[in-house]
């Protein structure tokens, strides 16, 4: 097939059922991304003879004789001196990307819009999903095209662009599969159709007879070792309950067999010819079913060895704890609030699915290129699983297309590595979007009961929480998420008597795992609504209620008796955050059409959240920095998936070395470069790895000064500058001092605390249940904000995900526990049309523990959002919504019941 791609004539071989996206990528056009593969996310958008289409839905043969324009060809007609299309330049100026995976499709789509379409972006951009940004800067960037007379955006000097920014807008940033892999074998997984079954037999003859099929793996082929796909600093934090391939399936979607073939088509054909006999076992679709006395045992294992609290009762972990005397506390209360709250099953929705490519390097090292937040922990897990020395395993990432906690797991590296070891060939596995829903992890659904006693003045006399968490078929992070959920959420409030009853149980549903907030989002939803309900009953303003009850520096942080004591008030800005909300929520501004119409009701609400600045039990990071002939080279372990930590690392190093970030090269996220890095999760990119970077850079700065003294033979007040080391008129060039190097290391303790407060004003249309967000305000205590643009981006993105969790998103299960909406068409990720702009305020604090006074700010902005929205909804309507998501149909139903028949 002949066509013209980005101006160049090309001849491609295509198959009858192939989509254009695949044909373009096979030709090396890696700016065309595979996000959903179903025409929903827009990451694959190209222009076909000037007309924008989703190339994943376009039959490849239709492009015969056409001009195809990808992100790589945008610049041609409208390019300025920088070789960029105006829309690419606008995206740079507005920092309209984080991980950058959706960016090429956004740019191609935006480039095709006329002025009328740009004026209705809600509609024009509904076929493009961004999970990271919340769309604010994207909308600004596109709108700026209609204001060419405006002066160029002045970049805040504290907010340099990410080092990958140019590559992202040009579509050349390399994600996990953005490289030619024609030589690699392709793997597909056969997945269980049953939620719970024993595998009786697997007949692989027909599959092996398919031309091109090289290998079929089943439970008969794999190591017996049990492990957890969850990756922590200490792998013992999650139960060893998973086998590479098991003879029992515990959720629909669990992998049953792997087929490895020359092509994906042959592998799929082989998979479809596997004959599996299952002996179905009774499904256990809910936590209540799991806790019944006669419930089927999901993991028939030795609890002491597998680290499962009580396998007979499907109990992964339980915590029953009391601090003080809650009975006495309730007895002295003027009022007691009791309620039950529920949170749903959610998907992370990172646009780059899970995937990995494994091969044996020439030196015999098992090498895995993957999309992970935790390359070092994955290296350790592979070494343990395959009984190899860690130095014989290398795991690395290039740019990662979003994570949100979902990539703190080893969901594909283990099986591709095993296949590479068996075949001696490179083997690739890329999850489909459907597999993201049925076979990757989700957020732990929880049912939380609160009982809180208060005096008339708002003083809390007793606080108890009863939490039941559903970890699904495997215990990934189940215990850790449970412990985290009941920690900062209640430690935030001054109350001498606290009681916690928490359980996490197995069910035969897709496994839960780490998710932005790590349990706090769910717990905040319950605690922050409870506080609001108490304030309402006592007639206390919700902000005043928080001001009276939250902890202040000097107060002990009390949750449970087992909580660690390495958390300090490195800084405290919650009071400032609450003050920002008090002034920013403008109760008078209501659009005319709402003010005039009595069917609309209006209300406001806030919620708070606290988070420790790092996970407990240590989070280790190393950094190395060298002065070479070519300049500075910083080596860090942290993967970059849009969190922007790479930019802040460069800023931190530059500050210590008296230079600018663009003069420091960076190497990262590769186990071949460094000894250890726990990973980019728990918001540790800035606070932990950044601190390691600061220590390394400060050490190198000391070595440089010393070398200058040694070289000149004169002690002096040597000051580091971009060109060299100065003392008055004396200058020693950096090149003259190279090579020098230094390392930094951080163990992740002591820890500080960060705060977030969110507020909404909403309008609700009672006859239809429609909800409109009139105002969204967020105040964050992030310590000294190193890069305000990036940090604001993290807040806006967290708020967006929080609004998604409150209003739209829900993985639905049928009565057996099988996912029934495994696509972005049926699982509603927020689009540009769904989200308000959020006003973001930062507390003016400086943390004495963090690098440059900074505190983490990536997962926490998400945590207070659903409760704030529920509180605003209750204020507007008088009705409480204690279960997420509050979709319009649910809002209408609850209001109709409260209002009586109409």
């Amino acid at each position, binding site marked *: 097939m002949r066509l013209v791609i980005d101006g160049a004539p090309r001849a491609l071989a295509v198959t009858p059922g192939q989509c254009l996206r695949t044909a373009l990528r096979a030709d090396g056009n890696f700016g065309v991304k595979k996000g959903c593969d179903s025409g929903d996310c827009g990451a694959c958008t190209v222009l076909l003879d000037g007309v924008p289409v989703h190339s994943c839905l376009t039959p490849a043969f239709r492009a015969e004789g056409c001009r195809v324009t990808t992100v790589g060809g945008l610049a041609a007609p409208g390019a300025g001196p920088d070789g960029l299309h105006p829309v690419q330049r606008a995206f740079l100026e507005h920092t309209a990307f984080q991980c950058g995976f959706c960016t090429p499709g956004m740019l191609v789509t935006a480039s095709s819009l006329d002025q009328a379409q740009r004026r209705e972006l809600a509609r024009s951009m509904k076929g493009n999903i961004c999970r990271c940004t919340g769309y604010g800067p994207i909308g600004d960037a596109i709108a700026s095209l209609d204001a060419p007379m405006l002066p160029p955006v002045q970049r805040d000097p504290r907010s340099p662009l990410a080092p990958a920014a140019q590559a992202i807008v040009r579509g050349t940033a390399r994600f996990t599969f953005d490289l030619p892999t024609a030589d690699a074998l392709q793997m597909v997984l056969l997945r269980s159709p049953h939620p719970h079954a024993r595998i009786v037999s697997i007949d692989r003859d027909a599959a092996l007879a398919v031309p091109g099929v090289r290998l079929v793996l089943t439970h008969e082929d794999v190591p017996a070792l049990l492990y957890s796909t969850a990756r922590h600093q200490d792998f013992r934090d999650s139960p060893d309950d998973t086998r590479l391939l098991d003879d029992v399936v515990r959720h629909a979607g669990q992998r049953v067999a792997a087929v490895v073939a020359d092509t994906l088509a042959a592998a799929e054909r082989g998979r479809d010819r596997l004959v599996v006999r299952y002996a179905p076992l009774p499904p256990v679709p809910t936590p209540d079913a799991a806790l019944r006395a006669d419930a089927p045992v999901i993991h028939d294992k030795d609890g002491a060895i597998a680290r499962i609290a009580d396998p007979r009762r499907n109990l992964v972990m339980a915590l029953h704890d009391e601090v003080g005397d809650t009975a006495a506390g309730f007895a002295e209360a003027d009022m007691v609030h009791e309620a039950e709250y529920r949170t749903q099953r959610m998907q992370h929705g990172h646009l780059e699915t899970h995937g990995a490519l494994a091969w044996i390097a020439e030196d015999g090292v098992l090498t895995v290129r993957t999309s992970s937040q935790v390359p070092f922990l994955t290296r350790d897990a592979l070494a343990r699983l395959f009984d190899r020395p860690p130095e014989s395993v290398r795991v690395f990432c290039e740019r990662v297309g979003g994570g949100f906690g979902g990539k703190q797991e080893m969901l594909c590296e283990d099986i591709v590595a095993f296949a590479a070891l068996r075949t001696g060939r490179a083997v690739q596995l890329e999850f489909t979007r459907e597999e993201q829903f049925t076979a990757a992890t989700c957020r732990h659904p929880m049912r939380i009961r609160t009982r809180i006693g208060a005096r008339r003045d708002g003083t809390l006399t007793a606080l108890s929480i009863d939490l039941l968490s559903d970890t699904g078929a495997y215990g990934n992070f189940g215990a850790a998420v449970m412990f985290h959920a009941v920690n900062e959420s209640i430690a935030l409030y001054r109350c001498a008597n606290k009681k916690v009853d928490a359980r996490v149980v197995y069910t035969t549903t897709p496994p839960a795992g780490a998710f932005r907030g790590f349990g706090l989002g769910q717990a905040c939803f319950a605690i922050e609504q409870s506080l609001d309900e108490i304030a309402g009953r006592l007639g206390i303003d919700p902000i005043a209620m928080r001001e009276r009850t939250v902890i202040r520096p000097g107060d002990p942080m009390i949750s449970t008796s087992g909580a660690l004591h390495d958390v300090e008030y490195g800084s405290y800005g919650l009071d400032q955050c609450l003050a920002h909300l008090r002034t920013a929520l403008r109760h008078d501004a209501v659009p005319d059409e709402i003010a005039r119409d009595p069917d609309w009701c209006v209300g406001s609400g806030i919620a708070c959240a606290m988070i420790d600045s790092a996970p407990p039990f240590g989070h280790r990071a190393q950094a190395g920095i060298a002065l070479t002939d070519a300049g500075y080279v910083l080596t860090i372990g942290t993967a970059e998936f849009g969190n922007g930590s790479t930019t802040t690392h460069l800023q931190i190093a530059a500050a210590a070395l008296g230079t600018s970030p663009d003069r420091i090269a960076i190497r990262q996220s590769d186990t071949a470069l460094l000894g250890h890095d726990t990973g980019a999760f728990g918001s540790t990119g800035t606070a932990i790895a950044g601190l390691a970077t600061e220590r390394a850079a400060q050490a190198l700065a000391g070595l440089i000064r010393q070398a200058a003294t040694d070289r000149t033979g004169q002690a002096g007040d040597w000051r580091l500058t971009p060109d060299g080391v100065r003392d008055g008129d004396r200058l020693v060039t950096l090149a003259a001092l190279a090579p020098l190097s230094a390392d930094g290391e951080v163990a992740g303790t002591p820890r500080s605390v960060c705060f977030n407060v969110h507020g909404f004003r909403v309008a609700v249309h009672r006859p239809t249940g429609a909800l409109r967000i009139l105002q969204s305000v967020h105040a964050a205590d992030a310590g000294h904000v190193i890069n305000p643009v990036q940090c604001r981006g993290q807040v806006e993105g967290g708020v967006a995900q929080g609004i998604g969790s409150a209003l739209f998103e829900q993985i639905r299960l049928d009565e057996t526990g099988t996912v029934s909406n495994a696509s972005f068409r049926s699982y509603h990720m927020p689009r540009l049309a769904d989200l308000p702009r959020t006003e973001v305020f930062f507390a003016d604090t400086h943390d004495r523990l963090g690098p440059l006074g900074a505190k983490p700010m990536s997962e926490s902005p998400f945590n207070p959002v659903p409760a704030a929205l529920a509180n605003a909804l209750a204020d507007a309507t008088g009705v409480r919504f204690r279960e997420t998501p509050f979709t319009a*149909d649910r809002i209408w139903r609850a209001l109709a019941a409260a209002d009586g028949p109409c």
Partner: protein
Amino acid sequence: MDLNTIDTLVRPAVRRDLPAPARGDAFLAGGTWLFSEPQRDLVRLIDLPSLGWIPIAQEPDRLVLAATCTLAGLDAWAADAGWAAADMVRRCCRALWGSFKICNAATIGGNLCLALPAAPMAALTIALEATCVVWSGLETDRIPADRFILGPQRTCLAPGAVLRQIEVPSALLSARFALRQASLTVEGRSAALLIGRLDRDGFALAITASVPRPLSLRFDRLPDGAALRAAIEAASAADGWYDDMHGAPDWRRHMTVRLAGEILAELAA
């Protein structure tokens, strides 16, 4: 997505090139649904755009829309058409849940033949009392639009039958229309899509998206609210209200009745 089980592509130039139906066949129009889900049982695609049908032809007594006319093509054409129905036609094109980029490829015929409850072309063709012209082998059948869809993803088409075109009586293009759409989200999938039409013959109401298959109600003149509500309840009794993640059945029912009332008020004004 790649449909790796497909081994044959047929690109007919004229009607007689259409192959005899076989297991594993699918007709391909825009491809926006076919390529959006795994199709493991398919082995052959028959490409309808290869037939080169003229997308839109305005004849004196009827408007002829080829099944392969894209939604974007219809939208653009209606923008310049000047008849009373034009605004309603455009709003139907834009009621598709897919993006405008989907509309650039998705076809009128594909939307009808997929027969999702939210299919906006179902509401459109019923409101316009269109006729679906179907090729069944060498026969040509004419089926009223309100009998074309039988249920979610179920049509009256026999295996191998092809929807050729949709014919709209010209007289109806100058009727008055009122359209209402409900969705759980802004620009979201239709949970109810209703079109009312008022002309010399009376009032007609097409109800889609909230029900498993489209309902078509007719009155000699504008009914009052109670009569309309009773007619809706009676018509929906057989199949009930549609239930999926895009809206709960009780809310869809409530919204349908409410929106029908709004349509009535608009057309009575």
